[in-house]
């Protein structure tokens, strides 16, 4: 078998998300190669939850993720910078009001 064939046959990449306990969201914890979704789940269990780190696992083909481009960082996120009035601390209230 040639190296080209080997490379073509590399198992696809999956992203792994683990819920650490009931009530907490699934969190990205890493990636792995697997032939299909079932195998990806099994491997994620072996690699990422050996010390009771999780109660639930999601696996998603890495190729299915659409990500924002770092080049667009300013366009996407800069406009939020001058809208500090969206934060509660922007509003100064008299002390007598107490907690609000």
């Amino acid at each position, binding site marked *: 078998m040639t190296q080209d064939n080997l490379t073509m046959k590399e198992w696809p990449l999956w992203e792994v998300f683990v819920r650490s306990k009931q009530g907490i969201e699934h969190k990205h914890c890493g990636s792995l190669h697997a*032939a299909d979704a079932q195998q990806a789940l099994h491997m994620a269990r072996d690699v990422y939850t050996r010390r009771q780190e999780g109660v639930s696992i999601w696996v998603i083909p890495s190729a299915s993720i659409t990500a924002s481009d770092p080049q667009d960082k300013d366009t996407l996120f800069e406009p939020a910078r001058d809208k500090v009035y969206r934060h509660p601390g922007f509003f100064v209230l008299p002390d007598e009001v107490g907690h609000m």
Partner: protein
Amino acid sequence: MYTQSFTVPDGAAKPNDRPNFGAVLSPEQQAALDAAQIKFDAVIDADGKIEPKDWMPEAYRKTLVRQISQHAHSEIVGMLPEGNWISRAPSLKRKAILIAKVQDEGGHGLYLYSAAETLGTSRDQMLDALHTGKAKYSSIFNYPTLTWADVGVIGWLVDGAAIMNQIPLCRCSYGPYARAMIRVCKEESFHQRQGYEALLAMMKGTQAQKDMVQDAVNRWWWKCLAMFGPPDTDSPNSVQGMRWGIKRISNDELRQKFVDATVPQAQILGVTLPDPDLKWNAERGHHDYGPIDWDEFWATVNGDGPCNKERLATRVKAHKDGQWVRDAAMAYAQKKSARHSAQKVAA
């Protein structure tokens, strides 16, 4: 398990899929490149993080691919000397612990290969470089594990040295590498403690057991000191690594920290570290230690250690023997998905 804070040239540069501007740049391209470099430098200067899709200098990318892949190779080759002892562990308890540790090392390899893959190199390319001898891995695994005490000493000293090296890497400027190292470090403490505890048990045993521990310490001590890499005066690449926030603490500084931490542990264990020059220096506030045999170290790095050939041959055989499993899993997945879409069409 490991890293040595220096990385040695692999022999062949790895291909990557990033755009290459070539030798001649238009003024616009040059201006764009300069702007990107200024942005990158500013992030590094502010102790910020670089993420996979961010622009980075090619030399930064290459250095990281080399260092992370060497680190990953070391993890999976590191499974071999200890794996030899799984079937010969002295009790079921020690066997279960050793299996867990060796499994961790495989996991560490996976975290690190994944981090390297974010830089545009494939798993197959990296494994190919390891199997053809183009890529290096930590020299420490080219020494044999002769007795059960070696397994304990590897945990205590080899993993102990690795922890010293790895903790600063958790703050590495490249995000995926830093995140992988945080995960590795969490698991590494178990490795060191189980090794030390196994040795404590032997030191409470017969004279023959105590002698076995001392013999293993004698054989591994100097090799662990060499794991930190050449002295700072002989590490020209370290300066660039520090500039890029890949390396945080110098080889000699880490080595000194390791010696200072290990001396009291050896006393509690009741073993002697095999260095007549090892003594407390009140003026420096550190232990002095004797000269390291760098000729022996480089001979092992360059392929002439006692187990270099055996380790690589075992790795290559495992990879080849597993090829049909990887092919079968892929074929099964493809067949299943083809059937699934055929059913969909029929319905």
